[in-house]
């Protein structure tokens, strides 16, 4: 007995030290999950859908071993409760067939990578409350038509989450934390794993043709619709950003106006005080909180502009990627034609 007690304690200690886990480095997804996500997202495209990811948290690797789709969300509250039931029911059922019964995050589809929204952050924070380590997998069905597997694993950075909890996005705070728009989301590298059985099946079943559907998609010359929409979205975002910047300009203008007002008030007060001193009277206080010009002007939150900036840079990346691809293609066509 006496021996057992220290043993358990040391075990607990070990468990406690494990708690301070290494940061999440890799998300390891099963091929099955990829196919399931793609199936769900494609079936409902262009509607945006979500689903739950199940898996295991092993050290710095988050293993995603299964997933299930959510029904399309309705605004009705009754149905919302139904959705929660559905989730529990599904998890229970899957556990019965020995699927990992541990939520590790969620997946969602997106249109041209326009996923950086406040809702995403809110959902992430909700998940984060319950699960220490969670991840969001984003799949873009529109890009897969070009032979790209547009799968991304994202998480919010720790410093951003801290800031989000305090709900303070003033410029000062951001500078203090040294947080810029690049630091909101962290992209985690994805690894794909397959069980040996699946690997064997796929090797068996792979068609003999040297050209696959993926190749056809990639060699498709027309990228115009995709580019067009991308640029369209980009322009919209730019408009939004300039709106945000106008807000800031307005804020600064107000701020500087207030500061000059304060200065002039102070000067007046000082001159008055000197006069009062000369007359042998008590000087008036140099600060007056009841005066409206001392009321601090609320600073607009920078979250929106950060998100829009993120979005814009995402569109830029996509444009660059696709343009690079089509430049390749064009040179290829040229070479072929000359031959």
């Amino acid at each position, binding site marked *: 007995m006496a021996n057992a007690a220290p043993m358990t304690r040391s075990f607990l200690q070990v468990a406690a030290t494990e708690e301070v886990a290494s940061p999440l480095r890799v998300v390891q997804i099963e*091929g099955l999950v990829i196919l399931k996500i793609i199936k769900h997202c494609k079936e409902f495209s262009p509607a945006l859908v979500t689903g739950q990811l199940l898996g295991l948290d092993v050290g710095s690797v988050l293993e995603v071993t299964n997933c299930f789709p959510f029904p399309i969300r309705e605004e009705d509250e009754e149905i919302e409760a139904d959705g929660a039931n559905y989730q529990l029911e599904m998890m229970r059922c899957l556990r019965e067939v020995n699927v990992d019964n541990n939520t590790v995050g969620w997946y969602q589809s997106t249109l041209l990578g326009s996923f950086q929204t406040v809702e995403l952050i809110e959902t992430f924070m909700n998940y984060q409350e319950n699960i220490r380590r969670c991840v969001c997998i984003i799949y873009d069905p529109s890009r897969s038509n070009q032979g790209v*597997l547009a*799968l991304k694993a994202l998480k919010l950075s720790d410093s951003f989450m801290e800031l989000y909890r305090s709900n303070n996005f003033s410029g000062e705070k951001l500078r203090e934390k040294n947080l810029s728009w690049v630091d909101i989301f962290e992209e985690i590298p994805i*690894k794909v794993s397959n069980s*040996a059985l699946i690997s064997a099946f796929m090797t068996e079943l792979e068609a003999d043709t040297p050209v696959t559907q993926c190749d056809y998609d990639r060699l498709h010359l027309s990228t115009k619709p995709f580019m067009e929409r991308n640029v369209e979205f980009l322009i919209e975002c730019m408009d939004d950003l300039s709106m945000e910047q106008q807000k800031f300009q307005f804020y600064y203008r107000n701020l500087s106006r207030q500061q000059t007002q304060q200065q002039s008030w102070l000067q007046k007060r000082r001159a008055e005080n000197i006069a009062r001193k000369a007359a042998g009277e008590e000087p008036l206080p140099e600060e007056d909180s009841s005066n409206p010009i001392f009321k601090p002007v609320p600073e607009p939150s920078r979250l929106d502009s950060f998100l829009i900036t993120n979005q814009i840079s995402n569109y830029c990346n996509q444009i660059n*990627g696709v343009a690079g691809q089509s430049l390749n293609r064009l040179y290829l066509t040229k070479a072929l034609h000359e031959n």
Partner: protein
Amino acid sequence: MATPDQTVLQFFPLSTSLSAKVHPVVIFNICDCYVRRPHQAERVIGTLLGSISFDGVVQITNSYAVPHNDSLDQVALDIDYHHNMLLSHQKVNPKEVIVGWYSTGFGVSGGSALIHEFYSKEVQNPVHLTVDTGFKNGEASIKAFISVNLSLGEKQLAAQFQEIPLDLRMIEAERVGFDILKKTMVDKLPNDLEGMESTMERLLAVIDDVYKYVDNVVEGNIAPDNSIGRFISDTIASIPKISPAAFDKLINDTLQDHLLLLYLSSLTRTQLSLAEKLNTAAQIL
């Protein structure tokens, strides 16, 4: 002499034009369920979901495992579980209905008829898919069956499983890329340009093959095959004939378009980083 009202021994339905198409996600799911089967269980059984089109093609697009108990001569299926799962699946996608059931193992086994009968109540003429996870013949055999009743007049004598043609819809898997699905571990997803590179390599290899073949035929090393020749000439004919000047203009215009877009996006990025610097600097008033 056989007259119409005489009792005859016959199969029902006589001949079927049914065929099945299986999506790779189903195979993946079955394999995963098999890997995760309970201790001592030898096989997994589950429900297949999908749709049936009018021309008799059964699309199998989804599946889920159903716990069961295999004893010597009987099979007990957890029917409650089956119904719960079905309801859940229908909430997500009401278009997917039961089309049949699957079991791992090679071909049809003893208890199959019983389960098949159960599924016959759920859906007319269910498909039975078998996936040989044991690689009995040294190959991955996936087969689809339907049940055919042997009846003598009105009286049913027996049921027979008849194999129907099965098509593996690998296009979806191809879209993802076999390179990713084939290996047990892939460290990194290919990005745009890497994918393009491998595609170009494959294209080059294919063109090389064609060249070699044509050269060999011209030199008389290989007997010419008319159908291949026609394919090649069709392919070459499908390249539109454009005058070099027009073609150059076409290519150059598109090139310019893309370069402009690239320029635009770099400009935007510069603008962003500039704006960020200004925004944080403007604080120090």
